[in-house]
């Protein structure tokens, strides 16, 4: 899932300061799962902004709307009938959602209310952890399903570095050393020989090649 965190209220207030009629658009997918941009969070943000405007004696008209997916045209189209009635759209989608809405309505002012952070996992209630950097060339098969790009602070393919102590990362003692995890798992499953090989440099062109990456699937085309 793509995770995000809501921006501080002060920053959002500054972003929307010039506008009196705001359409707040949530997304029911990833950012709802991580409690940042779903219907509930749209409601909470709208209340906070209304209350703040009232206290400041300022007019602010807000409409709340949460799409099932803010990154798919069929859902974004639900905004068509409202978009002209509002001065700005405050999106609680991830970065993809914000950009998708802006592309569908190029004249609209679309503002982000979230900071999109990472591709991760819901570890427990209230805890999300990054798991994937989308490198475009998954290497988990070699590393006992622990991604060194994501989990090692230095992204080492032939780790661990000299700062691994008692299974902790030197950069953040709350973080387990990815290489300790890799070695332990490989040892436990009798695959330590996987590490004899010097893992070659990554092909980063698959991650940040030439602008936005594309996936083209002829079999999926209509």
């Amino acid at each position: 899932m793509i995770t995000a965190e809501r921006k501080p209220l002060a920053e959002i207030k500054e972003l929307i300061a010039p506008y009196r009629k705001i359409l707040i658009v949530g997304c029911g997918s990833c950012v709802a799962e991580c409690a940042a941009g779903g219907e509930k969070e749209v409601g909470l943000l709208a209340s906070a902004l209304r209350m703040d405007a009232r206290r400041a004696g300022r007019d602010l008209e807000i409409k709340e709307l949460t799409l099932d997916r803010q990154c798919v045209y069929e859902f974004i189209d639900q905004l068509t009938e409202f978009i002209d009635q509002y001065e700005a759209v405050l999106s609680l989608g991830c970065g993809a959602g914000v950009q998708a809405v802006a592309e569908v309505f190029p004249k609209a002012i679309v503002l982000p209310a979230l900071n999109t952070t990472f591709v991760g996992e819901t570890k427990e209630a209230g805890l999300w952890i990054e798991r994937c950097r989308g490198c475009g060339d998954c290497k988990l098969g070699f590393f006992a399903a622990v991604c060194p790009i994501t989990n090692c602070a230095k992204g080492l393919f032939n780790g661990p570095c000299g700062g691994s102590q008692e299974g902790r990362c030197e950069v953040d003692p709350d973080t387990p050393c990815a290489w300790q995890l890799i070695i332990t798992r490989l040892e436990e499953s009798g695959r330590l020989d996987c590490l004899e090989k010097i893992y070659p440099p990554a092909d980063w062109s698959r991650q940040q090649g030439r602008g936005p990456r594309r996936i083209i699937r002829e079999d999926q085309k209509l």
Partner: protein
Amino acid sequence: MRGESRLKKVLQQGSFAVTAECGPPKGAEPEAIRKKGKILKGFVDSVNVTDNQTGVVRLSSLAACMLLLQDGLDPILQMTTRDRNRIALQSDILGASALGIRNILGLSGDHQSFGNQPQAKGVFDIDSMQLIQVVRQMRDAGVILGGEQLTEPPDLFIGAVENPFADPLSYRVLRLEKKVVAGAEFIQTQSIYNLARFREWMGQVVDRGIHERVHILGGITPLKSARMAEYMRDRVAGMDIPDEIITRMKSVPGAKQREHGMAIAVEAMQALKEIKGVYGVHIMAIEWEEAVPQLVEEAGLSPRPDV
């Protein structure tokens, strides 16, 4: 005639080598590095120049190496993978060789979050293992990554670091071996205070015959005070300072602690001379280069051999 690596010659003739670390200044003054070089000259075989150590911006390692070379020292260019991608790294490897620098030490580098530019993007395009392999391939096969031929290969003696005190212990020797396979010809270790654990590690190194394929130089950092010892134990990752050392440092008043720190370092250097598979010492007297000549003399490692 092209210069040669003094370190390589010392090691090849079987002499016990002495190297020391030298940190460039936080400014553009060449005098600072020259002054340090002057202190070390004649007492060490080669001088490591750190590459923006702990992620703090300093005069570049390559430039500082050149200044030392001009003053007749044999510099070891430390090169981290933290700040440069493979294009810049390979370019600097060629540049170093062209300037007459004959030693290189590849490492991943301290994480940028520890330094004075914590918002910097950590590059880590390749890791230290891959960097060592790249230098070796450039030198021996005359090719860069991707296989393109160089018009002239670099001439560099290749080093790497290893920390015998980091975890997981079971894997540390295997990782050292991997660095040797990658192309490392000499290894400088993390500072040694826990001689027992270092001996255990060296035992595994010798058992696997790795000492016959690489020259290991044991790391030495003289302690300035009991406070420094405690700070390093508690705050520097991968540093193993046993209680016994701390107690010894604390057993004398502050003013006397430096002497004690020096004595502990000399003892460790003497012990290292006797450990099978250890080919030298690497002294990292942090911002205390003045200590190096005394350490070398007291450890019976002066004068340095002719090569």
